[in-house]
């Protein structure tokens, strides 16, 4: 057993984990964060993607013990103060969510993209999402949503009452 201390969506979490537990299992089974999905189990489909210290990674291929002291962000962590992120709203507005299974992974990758590159070209959006498979939408509305969110991106707003603690 390893004593693991990890930040998940801004909240510190401590528990004993066996060596073989994956980050994916920790998030879904120990923390009830069911937004992160599991499909291919090989790192190909992207539905398990989360941010670790802001960097997109495949949680299904990550051991929980390797996240010691790190900051993990899942799709549940994209909202602030109970409000969904503008990127999430853009997905809704553009019809980029059908079955919803690929959506958390897409949102995580797009969040990382827009943090690093606030004004991506369509080619850059497609390149960023190349490791996230969608069987429903044909990708076009997803790409449109990311571009729309980039275009409408607002800087963090001032009033402290709307900030998460």
């Amino acid at each position, binding site marked *: 057993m390893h004593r693991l201390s990890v930040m998940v969506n801004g909240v510190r979490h401590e528990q004993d984990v066996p060596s073989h537990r994956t980050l994916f299992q920790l998030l879904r089974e120990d923390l009830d964060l069911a937004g992160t999905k599991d499909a291919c189990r090989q790192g190909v489909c992207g539905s398990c993607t989360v941010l670790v210290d802001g960097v*997109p990674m495949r949680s299904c291929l990550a*051991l929980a013990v390797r996240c010691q002291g790190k900051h993990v962000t899942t799709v549940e962590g994209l909202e602030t103060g109970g409000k969904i992120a503008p990127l999430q709203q853009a997905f809704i507005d553009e019809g980029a969510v059908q079955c919803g299974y690929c959506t958390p992974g897409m949102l995580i990758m797009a969040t990382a993209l827009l943090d690093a590159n606030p004004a991506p070209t369509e080619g850059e959006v497609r390149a960023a999402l190349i*490791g996230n498979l969608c069987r429903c939408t044909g990708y076009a509305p997803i790409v449109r949503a990311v571009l729309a969110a980039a275009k409408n991106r607002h800087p963090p707003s001032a009033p402290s009452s709307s900030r998460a603690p």
Partner: protein
Amino acid sequence: MSLPRFDYHAPKTIGEAVALRQQFGDDALVMAGGLTAMILLRERLVSPRVVLSLSDVAALRRIDANGGLTIGAMVTHSEVARSEAVASLAPLLREACGHVGSPAIRNMGTLGGNISHADSASDPAPALLALNAEAVIAGPGGERRVPLDQFFRGTLTTAINGDELLAALFVPRSAAGTHSRFMKFTATSAEAFATVTVAMSIVCDGANVCTEARIGLGSVAPTPLRARAAEDLLRGRKLTRESIAAAAAAAAACTDPSSNGQGSAEYRREMTGVWVRRLLGDIAGL
């Protein structure tokens, strides 16, 4: 989804890691980025008593640019692709690492893990072969170097012994007048395995006379390989349509491809020749 049970060790130094390799031998699975190791574990293709993680060995995460480029085994493909030192000293490797999988895969996968796994479809391997790279291997006796064209011994088999670890890849300085090209030719989508990968590093002067030629090929043999017969036809000669065609044919002839979802053996052999010809033609301006 569950993995088999194992003990997890995360040494802090290369010396500790080598000592664990000696202690556990084949009972330990070395884990670099984890992409290959986790799939081997999940599919029960291996059942090690121990996972030996290199994640905490800081010395393996460095990129040094003194007298050539030394890239630590735990440097990720993303870090290689972003590195200014790599961009200036080995742009061919920067391009190759940028083609691995997809962004999240590149963030986790490491250059050392990729090369020591020795998949013939590795994206960086042909580039490193074309760059005349060396494998820096750490063991109980210290460090030794193996030229990369002697490192790949067979299908998924390398020169690393059971008590050793790949510590770094060393890329010597390129000569002035070096032209490099990289093509990962995929039959389906960009993040798929390649049908053939061609990487070349050609030194020629303004009159297109070639003084050095190194061509690395991926996915067309049990290991990544150098197209030596093609190189021999280019060295010391002027690049012309005829000499390029001959070199391309020689490159295709040195392949030993298998047939799979990325293409038949005949198609891969043919495409090897096509892409060697096109890339050489591009360098020569023909």
